[in-house]
């Protein structure tokens, strides 16, 4: 780790409609370091990154690159200056191929005709993806891959351009352990080559695994810069939260649910190209975990149970009565809820207000005619904004303007409002900060104690083991087996990998 500052920002201020998103923030990135930018949801991390890369102009402050003042006017401008960025919301072109996305703006061209040399472009793109250990068909459209792969493509694009600064805003939120390991390997190589890397994450273990320094923001203000080795985890959390905050973990006091009648039973439920016929049973008050690798069929199974994709085999029974869903609306009418994995495309309705987003599912369930009065809507929205600690200027703010983690909380609130009998959560705490995550998980477990069944999909095995009564594991689009809660992480891992 050298001490030459490559990128230096000081006194950065940014206001949105009178509210300070950033106030007198400083940041120093040095050559050959991985620098964590930490803070709670809405602390201003993404906004700082947008300021550094010319997405938004700061109201105050200066930015210097190797001592030279700069004022990038657009991400392309920042890129030319040597700052390469992966934003929190993947903003690639879903309809273009993976190769086009990776190489956009710098296609290989034929010598004389200057036409695009497609076979070369595809080769280059494939080579770049292989650096991240991903062997995928780069000629297929980006949208045909799951979010995690799209995220890897965005990362691949960013690391493939020669830059002095690499900025990664929550790149790992949708990745599994293996991909994270790959990404870290690449980051380490780049660090050795002298690149400065800014890394945003809500996973503390990742911070301690790879970061050299940490800058902490709180409520748009600068809290401090620390060396990772000198900042214990508890101190980091206190710096972010602004008070003593104990990570107590959300252990589940096992409730005997073995005798309870099953709420939902799926028999041989499957769909060609999705999941193979699968049996699953969920009881009232039970927290059932669903583990597995990316693309193992966890999400697909939840979508079948919710009627989002039509099943072509098997039956679902609710309270013993067979049901066939033609649309999610029918599943919802029977008290089922699914908080989907992909927040941006399947979760938020960006231009609608926080209030409208929160009441949307409840209103859909009530139907057209029983329209909630404005007062009722306000009351519900206000209650859940407080319950989940959603940081927003007002309940009339369009959801698209909220920070990523706060958008996620809104989607969660939408489903909690419907008071479902079965709540299916697909990576519900993705992008949510560590303190809020603890509060949300304990809220959900409280509801489970009151009789709500929960299907909990998570890539974090320690979390699965801690909170679930039972864990079903998916492997290669089939159910590989079930374990009781409290099994060792090892047992789960073995089942996931198929090495048991």
């Amino acid at each position: 780790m050298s001490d030459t500052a490559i990128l230096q920002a000081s006194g950065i201020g940014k206001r949105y409609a009178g509210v300070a998103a950033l106030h007198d923030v400083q940041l120093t990135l040095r050559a050959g370091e991985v620098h964590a930018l930490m803070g709670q949801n809405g602390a201003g991390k993404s906004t700082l990154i947008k300021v550094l890369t010319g997405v938004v102009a700061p109201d105050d402050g200066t930015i210097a690159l190797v001592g030279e003042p700069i004022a990038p006017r657009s991400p392309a401008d920042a890129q030319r200056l040597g700052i390469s960025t992966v934003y929190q919301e993947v903003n690639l072109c879903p309809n273009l191929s993976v190769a086009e996305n990776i190489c956009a703006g710098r296609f290989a061209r034929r010598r004389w005709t200057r036409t695009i040399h497609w076979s070369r472009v595809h080769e280059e793109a494939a080579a770049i993806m292989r650096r991240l250990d991903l062997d995928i068909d780069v000629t297929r459209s980006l949208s045909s891959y799951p979010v995690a792969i799209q995220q890897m493509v965005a990362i691949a694009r960013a690391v493939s351009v020669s830059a002095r600064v690499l900025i990664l805003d929550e790149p790992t939120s949708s990745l599994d352990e293996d991909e994270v390991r790959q990404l870290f390997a690449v980051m380490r190589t780049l660090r050795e080559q002298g690149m400065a890397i800014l890394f945003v994450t809500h996973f503390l273990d990742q911070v301690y695994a790879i970061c050299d320094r940490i800058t902490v923001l709180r409520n748009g203000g600068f809290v401090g810069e620390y060396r990772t080795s000198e900042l214990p985890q508890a101190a980091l959390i206190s710096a972010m939260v602004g008070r003593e905050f104990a990570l107590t973990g959300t252990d589940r006091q096992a409730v005997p649910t073995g005798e309870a009648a099953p709420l939902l039973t799926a028999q041989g439920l499957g769909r060609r190209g999705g999941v193979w016929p699968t049996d699953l049973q969920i009881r009232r008050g039970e927290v059932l975990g669903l583990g597995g690798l990316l693309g193992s069929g966890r999400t697909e199974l939840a979508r079948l149970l919710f009627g989002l994709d039509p099943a072509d085999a098997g039956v679902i029974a609710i309270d013993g009565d067979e049901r066939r869903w033609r649309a999610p609306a029918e599943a919802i009418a029977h008290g089922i809820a699914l908080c989907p994995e992909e927040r941006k495309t399947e979760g938020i309705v960006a231009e609608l207000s926080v209030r409208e987003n929160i009441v949307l599912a409840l209103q859909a369930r009530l139907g057209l005619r029983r329209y909630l009065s404005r007062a009722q809507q306000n009351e519900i929205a206000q209650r859940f904004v407080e319950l989940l600690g959603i940081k927003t200027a007002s309940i009339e703010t369009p959801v698209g303007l909220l920070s990523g983690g706060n958008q996620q909380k809104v989607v969660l609130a939408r489903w909690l409002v419907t008071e479902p009998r079965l709540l299916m959560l697909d990576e519900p705490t993705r992008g949510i900060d560590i303190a809020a995550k603890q509060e949300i998980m304990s809220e959900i477990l409280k509801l489970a104690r009151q009789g709500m069944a929960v299907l909990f999909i998570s890539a974090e095995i320690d979390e699965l083991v801690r909170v679930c009564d039972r864990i079903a594991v998916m492997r290669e689009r089939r159910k590989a087996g079930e374990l009781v809660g409290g099994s060792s992480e090892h047992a789960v891992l073995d089942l996931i990998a198929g090495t048991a």
Partner: protein
Amino acid sequence: MSARFKQLSGHTLFWPLLTLALLLVANGIFNPGFLALQWREGHLYGNLIDIVNRAAPLILVSIGMTLVIAVRGLDISVGAVLAISATVAAWMIGGALVVDHGVTTAVTRLPMPVAIAGALGVALACGLWNGLLVVRAGMQPIIATLILMVAGRGLAQLIGGGQILTIYYPPYFYLGNGFLLGLPFTLFVVAAIYALTHVALNRTALGLFIRAIGVNPVASRVAGIRARLITIGLYMFCALMAGVAGLIVSSNVKSADANNAGQLLELDAILAVTLGGTLLTGGRFSLAGSVVGALIIQTLTSTIYSVGIPPQVNMVVKAMLVFAVMLLQSAEFRTTVRGWLVRTERRA
């Protein structure tokens, strides 16, 4: 610019209304009698009344089009549906004057209510067809409705036997030519439909659902909104509006011309919706804006006729005026112009 003006100009209806007002004032200057209203034989007469009356079919179709566009759709078959509805109504009513013992009475092939229901039923079926193509078959709206746009007129010709159908049944003429309380009856039709739509959008969750579907159809479906059903319903509503417009037009001209009724109506309707501030990308819409947009278009048409511009260049003039109006309403353009002005001020 004062804060007050900024707030005012931020309103969706500000620019459409300003445009309409400017057009009317310009007309009033060039043609002093233009804005005058007269009370004659118990009826209100005047250019303004005339414009609103003539705009009625366009207003109705624009209301339907607005809601279809709000859910990211488009319906370019409205002109053809208007022709179908007009032809069906004309054929079913038919009508002939029968002299019986020296008393002439008008008789119809089928009772008038049946004819009206029949025409509207056929229009609804057209909308269902469009909606199914878009939602079930997953076709692009412009292509899906292009089918009916092309085939619809052929269908209308078939019904009409390839001829212009004349209607001989005076009670039917009331719809397009009658007066109620001194005002054209069509005004009441338009007002009633507008009010009903407004209530459906704001007193039920329909407005919320439409905006949600327009912004993010996938997320809306996940949230339990019956997005497909609603979308089909809106295509049917749009076709129904075209059907009512077909009744008004056929009643007004006492005949149905399968070939020319509602010609280019789809373009005028899309234009009216856009002028009114509805986004073609879905999600944000203004019903009132579309009504104003339709009035702007009708005023333009009337202006062009009254100024005496030769019909050959008619379309060019209209296009230029529309171009100017769209520029005026474009926020980007206004920002650019403001930039120019500020710069010249500084230099001066």
